[in-house]
């Protein structure tokens, strides 16, 4: 079965602050989406709206045309693994998994066991005896074993060492290969996840500023290098995101489809997102020998 998640939130307020505005996008199963934004951009609020933890008053969130808010039939299809996922300190690993198994009808004990072996977690280990990384691994085990068609991970690799992060990505790809899941990964560390993400959703000040495939972003954005005098046609381009001067040399980050052939270098995604959300063209002058 295929799933489609429709999100249309014209406005969502927290007290006096407008946490989300002009959000509208659709997600389809079979794709891994990255959700990126700076601190306070509204990522967590958006994920809470999608998972029915918050009620959307203006607009709607719908999974196959049904709202998740207070709707068990939809909520059992969404597994949201939060950053520092709530786990009672006296629970053992097996208790946490047992509790989770009640809430997800497609729960797989086989996958749970595989994850425990991969993350080297023992059944009898208590949450209060775990390191931060182990708690994250347990939460990820819940997400990966849930069998839910919509998997949402908020900062999934927080606290995991490099080896466990790799193992998590492998397990995630196994889930992805089933082809029927909408997977959303919210992260600050886009560099590491860009290998796995197919489409990127970018929030800035609560607003959706980008929803595009990484391929498309890379296609139309790049660096152009050269001496200042040789780049007069680009200097005044209105799509310059960043301008860096090193002595006589100039490096421009430009987002312009018509310049695809002129790019000397592919854009660094992290840099691109930072410049994109800076609000003004980055200007930096580095002196030779500095």
């Amino acid at each position, binding site marked *: 079965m295929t799933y489609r998640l429709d999100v249309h939130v014209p406005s969502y307020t927290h007290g006096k602050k407008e946490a989300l505005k002009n959000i509208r996008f659709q997600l389809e199963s079979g794709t891994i989406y990255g959700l990126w934004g700076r601190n306070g951009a509204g990522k967590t609020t958006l994920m809470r709206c999608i998972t029915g933890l918050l*009620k959307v008053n203006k607009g709607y969130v719908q999974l196959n045309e049904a709202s998740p808010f207070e709707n068990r039939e939809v*909520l059992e299809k969404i597994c949201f693994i939060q950053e520092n996922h709530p786990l009672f300190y006296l629970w053992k690993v097996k208790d946490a998994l*047992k509790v989770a198994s*009640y*809430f997800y009808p497609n729960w797989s004990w086989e996958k749970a066991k595989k994850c425990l072996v991969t993350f080297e977690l023992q059944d009898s280990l208590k949450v209060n005896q775990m390191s931060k990384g182990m708690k994250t691994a347990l939460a990820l085990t819940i997400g990966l074993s849930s069998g839910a068609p919509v998997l949402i991970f908020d900062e999934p690799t927080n606290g995991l060492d490099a080896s466990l992060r790799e193992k998590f990505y492998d397990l995630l790809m196994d889930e992805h290969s089933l082809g029927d899941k909408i997977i959303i990964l919210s992260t600050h560390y886009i560099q590491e996840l860009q290998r796995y993400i197919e489409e990127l959703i970018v929030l800035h000040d609560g607003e959706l500023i980008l929803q595009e495939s990484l391929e498309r972003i890379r296609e139309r954005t790049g660096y152009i290098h050269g001496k200042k005098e040789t780049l007069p046609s680009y200097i005044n381009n209105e799509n310059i995101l960043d301008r860096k001067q090193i002595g006589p040399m100039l490096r421009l980050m430009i987002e312009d489809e018509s310049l695809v052939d002129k790019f000397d270098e592919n854009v660094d995604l992290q840099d691109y997102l930072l410049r994109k959300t800076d609000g003004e063209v980055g200007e930096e002058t580095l002196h030779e020998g500095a």
Partner: protein
Amino acid sequence: MKELKGVWKILSLEISRSTLIFWSILLFFLLLGIMFSVFIPFPGVMNWNTNVPVMIFLIITGARMFKVCLLYGSSFGCTRKNIYIGAVTFLTILSLISAIVHNVVFSSFSYFLETMEISMFINNVIEFANIQTNFFIFLLMDFAIFMFFASISYILSIIWHQIGTIPLYGILGVFLLSVLLPTMHPYWRDLGLWIYDASYLSLVSLLLLCSVILLSFPYFFTKQIKIFSREKPA
């Protein structure tokens, strides 16, 4: 139904340790009392009560229950309504089990103290009412009393969660000043007389009715329950 089992599992894992600790402490003190009465005899009878500690335990448990299952239940995709139903049914079962365990302990110790002629006596608050008592009546009364107090603390914890500490204190303050504090008011005397004269069925019915009303009321507002502290009610 499966998610209700999930809520019950969350709650049973949450309270199993505190329940075990509570009953161990209660039994330890009862045994300590017996040892004192036997080995260090003194004139008079040592009086104990076991209802009140169980009541206090259930008040504390009832107050914690909602927040616990809201936090963990919602993180696994359980609806507010199912969390509420799960917690209320668990509270009812817990009150019943506590009443059974309490009465088994109470009856066993009372029988033991009587047959061994130990100068220690365990009171039961129900004996203050003018009713014929037996194990079944004790059990039913205990259940109704435990349920009533646990319900009050459960509801107060929801109000506290929803509106915060200061507004809750305000409401309690108004309630105390207007209803509880005027101790000389005739309604207290009337209530005392009514309790003294009432049959156990009337007492049980009244307490259970109050519990049902208390627990039913928020059911209609479950969608408005906020999960996060800064969240505006839905």
